[in-house]
């Protein structure tokens, strides 16, 4: 719990920098929310001045930053002109789809990547090791959005196995298990498109980690103890090689969130990433910055969870924290 508290306190300055950074970017944007609003609805100079006053946009920059921080402290991200709704509500509505996509892609890439990494790393230098290493390098070079299109052509257009867009069948009236199955079917292709690059990454990290652990003294000691090779591979080598992989999980969360922007756009999934693209399209900068802020919070939370997981997996962590 000491770890948790320290990490939370450490996150505050980082978040503050993100907020100020996004505010500066907002300042740099040509035009403001009033311009965007008037651009959509029309209005004369009087209305513009009036709106600027009610939204506080006539204040100096520092006052507006203070107001921005004040509203953020109340979990108020501002108002989206394009959606005519509070930004917080729009984001919260989209967030679950992104979390579902990211969560599934993480589970797939971490699970399959580490398993294949163990298969490759169990016998370093063997044929299957070289095959998986080169194969994973090739997969690692594939852009997710393009893979998404190729998968669509193959499995949606040609084979008609999976739907090519959306998160679920619209107005199907499905509920419970059948709705979950429907969503799962919609998720297969986007999860594969988003996850495969990370699968390749985790495979490579696991394999490299195992190659390093094989050289450790305790593995030689385990062999001297005469326990089964299977137990050496899984319980001694893979168990230790898993640790850097878990660290990777936290580091990659920001990248995966960025990747889901393009994947959601390819598969028309109404998530945070697709929302970001819509915000760009309608030049709704406050909405875009709200998304960035929420993403940053999400990344911090994910890293927090990963840190906890790491502390569970590595008994040495707690000790060094206590003595530090």
């Amino acid at each position, binding site marked *: 719990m000491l770890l948790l508290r320290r990490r939370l306190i450490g996150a505050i300055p980082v978040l503050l920098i993100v907020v100020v950074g996004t505010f500066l970017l907002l300042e740099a944007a040509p035009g403001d929310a009033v311009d965007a609003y008037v651009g959509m609805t029309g209005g004369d100079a009087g209305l513009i001045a009036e709106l600027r006053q009610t939204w506080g946009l006539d204040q100096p920059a520092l006052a507006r930053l203070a107001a921005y921080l004040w509203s953020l402290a109340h979990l108020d991200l501002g108002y989206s002109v394009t959606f005519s709704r509070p930004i917080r509500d729009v984001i919260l509505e989209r967030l679950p789809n992104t979390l579902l996509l990211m969560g599934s892609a993480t589970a797939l890439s971490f699970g399959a990547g580490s398993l294949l990494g163990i298969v490759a790393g169990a016998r370093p230098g063997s044929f299957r090791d070289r095959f998986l290493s080169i194969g994973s390098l090739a997969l690692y070079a594939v852009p997710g959005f393009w893979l998404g299109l190729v998968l669509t052509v193959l499995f949606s257009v040609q084979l008609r196995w999976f739907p090519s867009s959306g998160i679920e069948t619209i107005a199907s009236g499905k509920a419970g298990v059948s709705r979950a199955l429907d969503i799962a079917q919609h998720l297969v292709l986007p999860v594969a498109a988003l996850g495969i690059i990370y699968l390749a990454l985790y495979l490579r990290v696991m394999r490299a980690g195992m190659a390093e652990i094989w050289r450790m003294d305790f593995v030689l000691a385990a062999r001297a*103890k005469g326990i089964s090779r299977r137990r050496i591979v899984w319980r001694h080598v893979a168990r230790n090689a898993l640790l850097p992989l878990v660290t990777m999980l936290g580091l990659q969360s920001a990248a995966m969130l960025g990747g889901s922007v393009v994947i959601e756009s390819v598969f028309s999934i109404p998530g945070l990433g697709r929302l970001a693209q819509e915000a760009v399209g309608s030049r709704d900068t406050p909405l875009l910055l709200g998304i960035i802020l929420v993403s940053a919070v999400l990344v911090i939370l994910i890293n927090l969870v990963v840190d906890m997981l790491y502390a569970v997996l590595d008994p040495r962590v707690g000790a060094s924290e206590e003595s530090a």
Partner: protein
Amino acid sequence: MSVRLTVEKLGVSYRGDGRETEVLKDVSFELRAGERLAIIGESGSGKSTLALAIAGLLPAGSRVDGNVRWPELGRQPINGRDLGFVFQDPSSSLNPVLTIGEQIAEVVRAHLGMAWREAYAHAEMLLGRVRLPDPASALRAFPHQLSGGQRQRVAIAEAIAARPSLLIADEATSALDTIVQADIVKLIEELVVEDGVSLMFISHDIALASQIADRIAVFRHGRLVEIGEAEQIVDAPREAYTKSLLAAHMGLDTPSLLSPEAVA
């Protein structure tokens, strides 16, 4: 006493970078049941390679000539079952993320055919035998929670778990400070006598070795220089190299147990 281990014309070479390096040449000796043999040499003398060769733990790509036979066994020896191995540095020879209990119990389970629950109970008994304080809670501890000496006791418990007939201690005390070193040597000595185990005590410290061993074998550059009764080697060495070893304050790499500087 029956012969437990026969090493005949053993040679080992490592291949790497297109070259072959001979690390052990034409080594022959016998080890009898319950006998304590010290293997002495500087680093690079091939003494650790000898231990790894006997345990079949040489790295891939090494070439082995000659034979290692176990006359009493009448079959190939099984690591853990027939020979126990204690490594130099217990802080790296124990798996950092597994509990002490699991690391001992897995040996018990593999060789004594016990279920996990029984194996843990057996592990607790073994921790008592190596005189670790509070064996029950040590079962649930991780290596980093123990001191260096305690870790080496755990490693010894693993090595003797299946009551092997040969115990190889490869520089098993040289990573420990001198006082702990003496305790560990005493522990090994006692266990060897209690169980009637043969001991190969590999060390660079001839003084330490002469305390524990019945016989001493001196190695240099991969060859067996001389082998004989401990008193004979210490008091009347035949080879010039052995004499120089003894003259060099009986310690080669680190201060020896008996040298006054070590205490200061």
